[in-house]
């Protein structure tokens, strides 16, 4: 299953202040650990919201609101997309994010990413399960062009 670990932004990330070399290094080591464990799918850092925009809807009409946005604590500064076995594993990895000392408040969100192939089996009715069985037999051999 896939999870997105979202790093929350704040006054500093909004100001575009670059983190200390120490933080950069530990972040790099963390990303490396994720990659070496085979769980990292993608990781990106985000620019301050002044470089982005929000789209608001009212009565079916869209309005573009240019950044920066007012509520800094609702902003995000970066994310990791990981593929792990369980929600607990995602949380365990999130706990290992090297958050600089002195950071207060909610620093990270862990979101489960919807995956179209994540459909649980017990959601299948009996006749579909039967079809499933046939499918499995059929896919047991590689068919041309699959």
């Amino acid at each position, binding site marked *: 299953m896939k999870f997105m670990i979202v790093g929350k932004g704040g006054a500093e990330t909004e100001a575009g202040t670059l983190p200390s070399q120490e933080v950069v290094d530990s972040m790099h080591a963390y990303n490396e650990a994720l*990659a*070496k*464990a*085979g*769980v990292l*799918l*993608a990781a990106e850092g985000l620019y301050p919201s002044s470089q982005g925009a929000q789209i608001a809807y009212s009565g079916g009409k869209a309005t573009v609101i240019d950044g920066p946005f007012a509520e800094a604590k609702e902003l995000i500064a970066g994310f990791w*997309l990981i*593929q*792990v*076995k*369980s929600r*607990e*594993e995602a*949380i*365990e*990895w999130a706990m290992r994010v090297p958050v600089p000392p002195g950071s207060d408040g909610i620093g990270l969100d862990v979101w489960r990413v919807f*995956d*179209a*192939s994540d*459909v*649980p*089996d017990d959601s*299948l009715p009996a006749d*579909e*399960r039967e*079809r*499933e069985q*046939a*499918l*499995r*037999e*059929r*896919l*047991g*051999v*590689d*068919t*041309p*062009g*699959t």
Partner: protein
Amino acid sequence: MASDADDQPPARRGAETHRAIEAVWRIEAARLIAGLARLVRDVGLAEELAQDALVAALEQWPESGVPRNPGAWLMTVSKRRAIDLIRRNERLERNLIELGHRLGTEEDLPQVDEIEDDLLRLVFTACHPTLSMDARVALTLRVLGGLTTDEIARAFLVPESTAAQRIVRAKRTLADRKIPFEVPQAAELSARLESVLEVIYLIFNEGYSATAGDDWMRPALCEDALRLGRVLAGLMPEEPEVHGLVALMEIQASRSAARVSPSGEPVLLLDQDRARWDRLLIHRGLTALERAEKLGDGAPGPYTLQAAIAACHARALDPEDTDWAGIASLYEALAKLSRSPIVELNRAVALSMAYGPAVGLQLLDQIAGEPSLKDYHLLPSVRGDLLFKLGRREEARTEFERAADMTRNARERALLQERATACREAG
């Protein structure tokens, strides 16, 4: 003495910690076992020691909380257990002095680079050709994937006792035959690496062919295999075929959601809704393929070639845009490495798509007599399709009927019979 995490009845108040411990295990098991195996020079014993530490964690962490560095905690406890065990276990008596010395002088946790080397040693030991394929797969999932015996059993549709036995026997074989805990030397490396890649790809295919089986453990095997492949790519960044295998698995996995219709029927590649392909996995696959091709220096291995074929499909936003000529020549290169009738059959399909049905048919006629394809319904099925396209309806009908008789799949039989009937009507 060894026991699975899930064999322990979880304390009610500790249920949450229990799940957290499982997560820690998933992350730490391979490195822990690898580090221990270097200390005790025995993969089986290392795995048992690691399991013991896991049991200790299950006992203590619900009370004390998960420690700040759970990996180091587990390693320290395992080492302590190792010393206890040496005192009790005659099997190790002759190694006692050497082992005691090592345990006494090593740092609590081996250095990071050392752990990387240990992990690689663990990969090669778990996939050692002296073990049966079943044993290699079970042991790899256990010591590198951190899967429990129960999970392995469910994934391979065998009783738990069978899975447990495979692991026990694998560990005993390694010990009895004194298989060294090491990365093979250059001369032996490529053959041994082949076994490692084979194990990982077999695990992947076991999950991929199940797609969405009764038990969720089976499709999850694809993720296990991908994870192992990505780990291996990190450990052996200079080996082109490792990246080739990762590329192949990433691209194949990108199609998971599109391979089955909402009603549960298989959807063949050309009929798949390409919007449902996972673009991120495709991107990762193409990147890995590029790396494999660059490292391979113009002589791609079988996994890289298969990945390149998969990439031709992945790059085509529309099935019409498929580079069939490219696919045909990749199949030709693949056939040169390991000629197989299945590869030829696939090549015939590609040739017919690129240069017309007559060209494909010509190749099919060359392999028609292959004994290994005697009962393979796709041969007459493909042949029927090409004959149909050439307007040779009567011959096509015979082929479709033959294919219908050969397939064991009721749905497919119905489809082939329909096509046979259509030949008659059209003719």
